[in-house]
């Protein structure tokens, strides 16, 4: 049997963004399924009927390379990432916009997989995609596909979930083990053949936040542990309030394959990105209640908050009883992982 002709593979062409027939075919054939109400796609703007209350609004762009990796792709990231940002404000994610910037030459089959993934992620996050836009850029001027999503959510808390609400005595919990997404991306990018493969932790965070609220946990702050990992999140929270965040390294949950891969490549799991993990800062009195909610999914207590120096700091107590100051990742950032 003859090899398939690569030139015959259907691919994105510039005209798919040109507003003409091809664009209409792209929308009808591939993109219409993104919308719960297929007629939405015909309008310049979505009309929304939202519940009364305070809203949260967030936007994020996704430039991950490679576009597909173990346990997810740029589509699942784009929906989950923005929905999770809303959840971190204490808001139930409701609606999303979706901007697609496609590179000329992108395989149609890959676009179809990304669209399917967007649809599936929207269902899992409980959000509706209500408006969107598609552009095509010349070959070499994009990296397959760039996505942007903006989202609106309905706030479910009265007191703002905010770094400024953190006070000495608060307790620090993470919702699950660290570094899986970072390792999945590294593996895909560098062709590491991890056996068994390690899947990204990409998942919706709102259900866990909703469960914490339902259990009566007062949430002083939430932070998803995306780019820069737990280390960056802790840094960002320590500085504004001159706090010292004291972390027990022994309590940090890291699965063996992540630990081994990090040891091999010289990375610290604390700096690896996650796409389905968050840090919760709660009053000491609520710690056990929060743990009861988070522990069944692998969540755990990792440390406490104390008063700190003027610029704040993160102090890591090693398992051996020594201490070191955690500084922001520098000079060795892993580019474009989310």
């Amino acid at each position, binding site marked *: 049997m003859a090899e398939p002709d690569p030139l015959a593979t259907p691919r994105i062409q510039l005209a798919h963004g040109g507003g003409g027939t091809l664009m209409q075919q792209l929308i009808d054939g591939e993109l219409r399924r993104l919308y719960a109400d297929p007629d939405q796609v015909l309008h310049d703007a979505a009309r929304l009927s939202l519940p009364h209350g305070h809203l949260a609004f967030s936007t994020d762009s996704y430039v991950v390379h490679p576009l597909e990796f173990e346990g997810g792709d740029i589509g699942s990231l784009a929906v989950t990432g923005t929905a999770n940002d809303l959840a971190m404000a204490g808001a139930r994610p409701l609606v999303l916009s979706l901007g697609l910037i496609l590179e000329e030459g992108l395989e149609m089959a890959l676009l179809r997989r990304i669209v399917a993934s967007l649809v599936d992620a929207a269902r899992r996050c409980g959000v509706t995609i209500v408006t969107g836009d598609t552009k095509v850029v010349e070959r070499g001027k994009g990296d397959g596909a760039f996505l942007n999503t903006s989202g609106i959510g309905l706030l479910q808390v009265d007191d703002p979930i905010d770094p400024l609400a953190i006070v000495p005595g608060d307790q620090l919990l993470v919702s699950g083990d660290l570094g899986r997404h970072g390792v999945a991306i590294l593996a895909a990018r560098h062709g590491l053949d991890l056996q068994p493969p390690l899947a990204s932790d990409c998942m919706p965070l709102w259900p866990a936040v909703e469960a914490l609220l339902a259990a009566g946990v007062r949430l002083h702050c939430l932070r998803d542990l995306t780019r820069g990992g737990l280390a960056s999140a802790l840094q960002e929270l320590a500085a504004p309030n001159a706090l010292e965040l004291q972390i027990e*390294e022994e309590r940090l*949950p890291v699965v063996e394959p992540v*630990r081994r891969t990090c040891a091999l490549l010289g990375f610290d799991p604390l700096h690896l990105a996650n796409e389905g993990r968050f840090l919760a800062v709660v009053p000491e009195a609520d710690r056990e209640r929060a743990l009861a909610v988070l522990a069944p999914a*692998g969540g755990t207590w990792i440390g406490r908050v104390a008063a700190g120096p003027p610029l704040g700091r993160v102090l890591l107590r090693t*398992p051996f009883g020594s201490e*070191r100051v955690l500084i922001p990742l*520098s000079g060795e950032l892993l580019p474009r992982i989310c």
Partner: protein
Amino acid sequence: MSAPAVLTAEVAAVRELARELVAITTRPWTLMEVCGGQTHAIVRWGLDQLLPPGLKLIHGPGCPVCVTPAATIDAARTLARRPEVILCSYGDMLRVPGSATGGDEPGDLLGVRAAGGDVRLLTSPLEALALARRHPDRQVVFLAVGFETTAPATALLVRQGMASGVANLSLLAAHVRVPPAMAAILTAEGNQVQGFLAAGHVCAVMGTTELEHLVDRHRVPVVVSGFEPLDLMRGLVACVRQLERGEARVANAYGRVVRQQGNPAARALLESVFEAVDRPWRGFGVIPGGGLGLRAPFRSLEAEARFADLQGGPAEAVEPVGVCISGSILQGRARPVDCPAFAGACTPEHPLGAPMVSSEGACAAYHRYGRRG
């Protein structure tokens, strides 16, 4: 499902060794861990905080990127500017500043690349041969750095390069040998080092014979040590035990990796291609026997033999100018936090000296793990 970053059994063993170290130490001692990888582990895990008060660790020069003379980097930069040259080396090497400044271009190889030079990163020396084959119209120059650990891989490149008959491959050979540097530290004026934790991976290749000679001549304990917290604590206990008893011999605290004879195949390969030569180390000056030079049958592969630009005598070890004290840090005479530029003018993003660039450099370790004084 998930486990802590360190195994519980290892934690218990490290703590037990820390208690033992306190119990057996009756006097102040100063030890040097030779290898930058060991320095990183010590600072990463705060092992120095577990030591008895009088036991001092000095960080050694065991980072090949750090001790490569500025003049060698200058030579690589000179070649990389030539349009026909593809200059390749390991990642960290591309960011180490040479001695040349002036102009707007940063003084490292990446600066030459930004200005249009063809500078490439390799992860294995044999990639240089593949590059030479792929680009017969270009000159591929491999800047070969590293200790006895990476020299066998370079030796393999040399042998395959000669055998293949490619005419467009050459080497800037800057490999160095660790034991002569240990001797240089011991004989330097004002030396404080009373015992060594030797670099386990160097011994994994070379075995322990050269260290026996060092001990015979200088009468200091040398303990072959690994890179995990437990390996290092075992090394420290073994070294202090000897000092307390007035002994000086080679001990192997890294038996799970290191054999007395080393790796015979790798050694044979290395010794067939290289011989010991005097070589300048950054921070030290010329160390007798401190380098590995190509043996006569392979010298046609030396870049110096190919390019007139490089002729004019061996490179002097020019030190970086300004406030950077990396020379003293490499000799173990100062700590990174003693440098006025540390974490201020000198950071991993804007390094002034090699120890801040290399992933094994002492300054990079202090910076990465939050040591600030």
